[in-house]
Structures are given as structure tokens and as C-alpha cells.
């Protein structure tokens, strides 16, 4: 059926081309090509309930402007995204454009176009330098940074007042005391989601708060003294009952919903948590603050997701370039990134969005953000190991043993 649609499309485009040329419209140089339409598969995760509609809007406008290119959109949940992608790669049907996180393993295996092949020099030059640098493997840029995000502390002001806590904590000790005071009142003080959804995120927020991290492009370092201290502090919070029940098996999204209902004292949230609260429980009396750290020095988890393009049979680089240039133009990009509630990665985008107040606390924290070592080929495996193993911290396992297990998986993948 797909084939017949495609044939039909080719036919109609060819007819349209004939009509155009016979009428004497030379038009755009791509519009009159004999091969007719190119179709691009676009695989994206769902960032919010509105993700699909937002992409559909972009695609509609793009297709209107580029009649010879059609785009097939596929939206998947974050939990399924990478399994879907892997299945597609194995079947030789990798998406032409993929919006995801880790990419270095694909780059080193030669599956990706380089950034230069899929975007014009103007588009590439518009990315902020720190983000563009994050997209390189061995000095070559492969992916285009799509969005940035940072975490901040969301705290429930009513619960703070009830528990007699003055202001948001800035250090771990203050966080511990605040969580203890809130827990006394019968509501969990701190929400710690260590389930498979995003265990690596919660882990890195804490470890970055102690000067730790997951390593760099050449080495994954999970089992370090700084990280261990952070994990031990997390375990202390869990053992002392200052978190919600069963943190090891708690997924982030449902837990943030519980915070929005006003049932948890503090959680680490995303820029779009602000919009979510506004939509679902505007009554919630909450505040935003920097992530508390061991010493009080600011540090947070930064995430940059990216667009990349898989090479398939047939050269589609030109069509992909058309899409990328269209998408990253400020008039399209800013609307997309601000509707999703993320921070922009382009210079022109940042200029346009600098006036946005809800994003201000996050933009402020971005310089002190620690990123995942996504350019390390072993990161995929480390990420998986965090998702399946880190939650054991909440099930009574010793922090040292948990980190050791994760490090072992990372080392095995690095071999």
C-alpha cells in the first residue's frame, strides 16, 4: 500500500511538474526535477502531549514550501524510542531524520551523515559554540543540537510553610533538613525517581552536585569517590525515609505528576514542568530554585537533544538539508522550542527568547550544567546500565556495589 501511495505521489508530482514547465514557470531548481518526490522518515520522541501536533505543524509548512519532499512522521515515547530505532536500523530502514540523545556509537559505525552534509553553512554557524562542540566525534560534527534543557529545584511553598522551612535549600545538608521537616508533616519531603525512565538523570544531578560526573568522550567514570559520596548521600535520604516510597522503582513522569498534585515537598524538574503545572494545577503554590549541591556551588544536569540523519539507500542529503535549514530558521525554530518549553541552541533563537521570564532561572543555570558524555561510544551502554541498575540503591543495595556494577557494564562496552 505504501508503495502504491508513493507511486501515486511520484505520478502526481510528475504531472504537476509537467504542468508547471508547460506553463513556463521555471520556478525553484528543485521543483522541476524529473525524479519527483523524495520522502523522508522522521522519528521523534514525545516531549509532551503536544509534540505530535507541533511536528505536524512544522511538516505541513515545510511540505507547502517544498512540494517535492514529503515527510513521514513517527512519534514514540522516550521509553520505546531507542528500541524502535534499533529495530529500524536492523531492518535497514533507519529514519532519515532522528531526534534523539546518544549518537556517537552511530557516528563511529559510519551510519550518520556529517553535519556539513545535512545543513547549510549558515545554519551550522548559527549554533552556540558549546552546543556544537557537544555534537562532535573525533573533531567532526555529526548531529545538530535541537534543544537544551536544565534541571531546577521545584518546591512546594505551602508544604515548606507548614513544616516551618524558611527558604529553598542550597546545600545537601539544608536539603536533608528541609526534607526531614516536611516528612514529619506526613508528606514525602523529596521525590527521588530512580526507576528505569531516567535514573541516569537523577544520578547525574546529584553527582554533579559533588563535583562528579560520568566522564568524557574517551573514558566513562562512574565509580569515582565524588560519585560514591553522592550515591551514599542519596542512600542516606532513602534509608532515613525522607523520599517517597520505593524510590528505586519510581518513574520520573508519574512522580512529577504527584508533585503537581501537591503531594511531595521537593523535586528536580524541567523547564516544561512549569507549563505542566500551569495547565494541570495552577493553584499549586510552588517556587523554583537552583539545585542544592554538596558545597552550595551551582551545578545542574544539562541535556541537549539533537537531530541526526542516517544514511540509507539513495542520497537524501539534499532533502534533509532543505528540512534542517527550514526548521532551524528562527521563525520556525523559536516557536517549536518555546512551545515545547526548552532552551534554544541557536544564537538567533536565544536572542529572540531572551525576554521569556519562566525560562530565566533555567537559562541562568545553563552555564554550570554538566552534560552526559554522549560522544563516548560506551555511553549508550552506560545509560542502559543506569536505567536497569541504579534503582537498586533504593532497594537496599550498597552504593559502592551499584556503582561498581554500572562501571563494569561501561568498561565491557568500551572494550
Amino acid at each position, binding site marked *: 500500500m505504501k508503495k502504491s501511495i508513493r507511486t501515486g505521489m511520484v505520478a502526481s508530482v510528475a504531472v504537476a511538474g509537467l504542468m508547471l514547465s508547460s506553463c513556463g514557470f521555471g520556478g525553484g531548481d528543485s521543483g522541476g526535477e524529473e525524479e519527483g518526490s523524495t520522502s523522508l522518515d522522521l522519528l521523534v520522541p514525545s516531549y509532551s502531549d503536544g509534540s505530535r501536533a507541533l511536528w505536524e505543524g512544522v511538516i505541513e509548512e515545510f511540505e507547502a514550501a517544498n512540494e517535492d519532499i514529503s515527510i513521514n512522521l513517527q512519534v514514540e515515547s522516550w521509553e520505546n524510542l*531507542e*528500541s524502535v530505532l*534499533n*529495530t529500524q*536500523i*536492523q531492518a535497514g530502514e533507519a529514519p532519515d531524520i532522528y531526534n534523539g540523545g546518544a549518537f556517537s*556509537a*552511530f557516528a563511529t*559505525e559510519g*551510519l550518520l551523515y556529517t553535519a556539513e552534509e545535512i545543513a547549510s553553512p549558515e545554519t551550522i554557524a548559527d549554533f552556540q559554540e558549546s552546543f556544537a562542540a557537544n555534537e562532535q566525534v573525533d573533531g567532526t560534527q555529526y548531529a545538530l543540537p535541537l534543544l537544551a534543557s536544565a534541571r531546577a529545584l521545584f518546591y512546594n511553598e505551602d508544604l515548606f510553610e507548614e513544616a516551618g522551612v524558611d527558604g529553598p535549600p542550597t546545600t545537601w545538608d539544608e536539603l536533608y533538613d528541609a526534607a526531614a521537616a516536611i516528612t514529619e508533616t506526613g508528606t514525602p519531603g523529596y521525590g527521588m525517581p*530512580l*526507576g*528505569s525512565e531516567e*535514573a541516569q538523570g537523577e544520578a547525574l544531578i546529584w553527582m554533579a552536585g559533588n563535583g562528579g560526573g560520568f566522564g568524557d568522550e574517551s573514558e566513562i567514570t562512574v565509580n569515582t569517590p565524588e560519585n560514591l559520596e553522592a550515591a551514599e548521600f542519596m542512600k542516606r535520604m532513602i534509608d532515613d525515609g525522607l523520599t517517597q*516510597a*520505593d524510590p*528505586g*522503582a*519510581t*518513574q520520573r513522569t*508519574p512522580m512529577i505528576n*504527584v508533585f503537581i498534585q501537591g*503531594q511531595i515537598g521537593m523535586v528536580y524538574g524541567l523547564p516544561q514542568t512549569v507549563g505542566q503545572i500551569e495547565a494541570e494545577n495552577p493553584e499549586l503554590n510552588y517556587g523554583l530554585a537552583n539545585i542544592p549541591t554538596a558545597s552550595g556551588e551551582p551545578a545542574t544536569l544539562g541535556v541537549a537533544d539533537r537531530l541526526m540523519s542516517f544514511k540509507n539507500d539513495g542520497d537524501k542529503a539534499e532533502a534533509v538539508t532543505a528540512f534542517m535549514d527550514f526548521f532551524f530558521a528562527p521563525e520556525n525554530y523559536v516557536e517549536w522550542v518555546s512551545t515545547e518549553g526548552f532552551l534554544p541552541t541557536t544564537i538567533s533563537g536565544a536572542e529572540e527568547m531572551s525576554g521569556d521570564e519562566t525560562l530565566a532561572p533555567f537559562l541562568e543555570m545553563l552555564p554550570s550544567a554538566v552534560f552526559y558524555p554522549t560522544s563516548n561510544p560506551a555511553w*549508550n*551502554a552506560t545509560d*542502559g*546500565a543506569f*536505567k*536497569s*541498575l*541504579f*534503582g*537498586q540503591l*533504593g*532497594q537496599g*543495595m550498597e552504593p559502592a556495589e551499584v556503582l561498581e556494577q554500572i562501571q563494569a*557494564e561501561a568498561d565491557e*562496552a568500551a572494550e
Partner: protein
Amino acid sequence: MSAQPVLANPAASPGRKRRRQNSDGLPAALPWIGPVLLLIFAIVIFPAGFMIYNSTREISQSGIDQGSAGFANFADVFTDPNLPRVLLNTVVWVVVVVSLTVLISLALAQFLNKPFPGRTLVRMAVVVPWAASVVMTTTVFYYGLDSNYGIMNAFLVDIGILDSPYGFTKNVIPALGLAIIVAVFVSIPFTAYTLLAGLQAVPEDALEAAKMDGAGRFRTYFSIVLPQLRGALAVAVLINIINVFNNLPILRIITGSIPGYQADTLMTYIFKVLQFDRRVDIASALSVLNFAIVIVIVAAYVKIVKPMKEL
């Protein structure tokens, strides 16, 4: 379909003669059975063969074949420190679910075999868990027992059994226990109906004769009814073993959010290796192991219980 051999066995010697005729007719029969053979090849033999092939390859995380790995994947699997726990869980899971299912179904079938007002309705009701999607049934239990939203949890707190909501699906033992309950719940309809069919085939005169000879209820059941149920029981047990052993959805939903591998059976472990570690090669090797275990269980079962032997 597994009932076939039980029925096909009588009259072995005339069968031999017929078989010769069949072999003469093979070329003639081929066009008729050809499509089925093709289908079996495409959906059974080829995937199984490909799985075995993959288990001897080295496959990158993005799914690219990087050459032969010999038996290295199997060496990895057998030295995997998680394997003993996973196998233990699998054994407990299969044995408990299948025994509970069969015991409850035996009682239920006996009950459904007796005439009573409204029997048709009750028989229909028993089919419901079978007719409903397993994923749906399991999800109902999963959300019902969620510690934040679950109405079953709220109910248990309201009637005072629990002081505060408990994460049934977030701790190893209760989650496995819950998964077992759900698995028994969805396995009962098929098993009960298979046994009910068996019960209805027990000849009235044998029961009457037992009564005449003064056998009590228990004596009648264990000496007359149960031996007659042998064929039906054999089918029910065998199919349940295979089904339960290979069950993914129930465990995946109920124990899926538990970190580590303490609550995994072989099936969910394969799934995690595939989803989180993205090791198609190791997952294939584990699947071959899985496949081998099922074959051994079935062979041992057939050998020991001899379900095909004539009474």
C-alpha cells in the same frame, strides 16, 4: 492442536498401511500442503534459525553484524552472575503458576460439570479473563495497586489492612506474587475448559459401577475420574508450562519498574538485555537457551508422564 496425538493413536497397524499410500501420494499432495509448509518455514523455522545464527555473531549496539563470535556469546551467558537468580525465578514462576492453575481448574471444572441453576452464566463468566486482553487485565491490577493512585491500595488502607499505601509492584517478592496471581487468573479459563471437556468424556456407566461397588466420593474421584482425565490434564499442563514459561506481558508490566535483575525470569531478562543493553547477540544466545529449556521440559514431560500412552 496438541490434543491430536492423544486421539490419533488408536489402531496403529491399519495406520501403517495407510502411511504407505500417503507416501505414494506425496507429490500429489504437495500443492495442497505447500502453502502451509511455506508458512511454517516463514514464521517458525526461519526466525528460529535466524535467532540461532544471531547468537553466534557479534552484533554492535546499533544492530550491525560485525562478524562471527563463535560461542563467545554463550560463554558470556553462562558466566553471567545474574543467570542463577533469573533461572531460579523462572522455575518458581512456572512451577507455582502451573500447579495453582491446574489445582484450581480441577476444582472449578468439577463444579462447572454439576448441573445447577445459572450454570451457563457461570460458565460464561469463567471465560471472561480469557477473552480480555492480558495486557489490559494486568494493567488493571498494576494501576489498582499503584501506591499513589491505586484504588485497591486505597481500599486496603480504608479497611485498615494497611497503614499506608504499599508499593506492591515496586518490591521483588510482592510483585512476583502479584504476577503469579494474575497469571493464574488468566490461565484458569483455558485450563478449566480443557478439564471440563475431559470430565464430560468420563463415561456415566463407570461412575455408576463405582457407586454400585460402594466406592466413596474420594475413591471414585481418584480411581475413576482422575485417570480418565489424564489426556486432558496432559494437554492442559503442557500448554500451560510453555505459555507461562514464555510469558512476557504480565511480568513486564508488573515487575518492569523494579531495578536490577532480582525479579526477572528468563523472558524478561532477555527483554532487558535487548532494551537497555541493546545486545542483540547476547539476547539471541539467551533465547536459544530459553528455547532449549522449553524443549527439554517438554521432552522430559512426555517421557515421564507419557501423555500419549493408551490407558
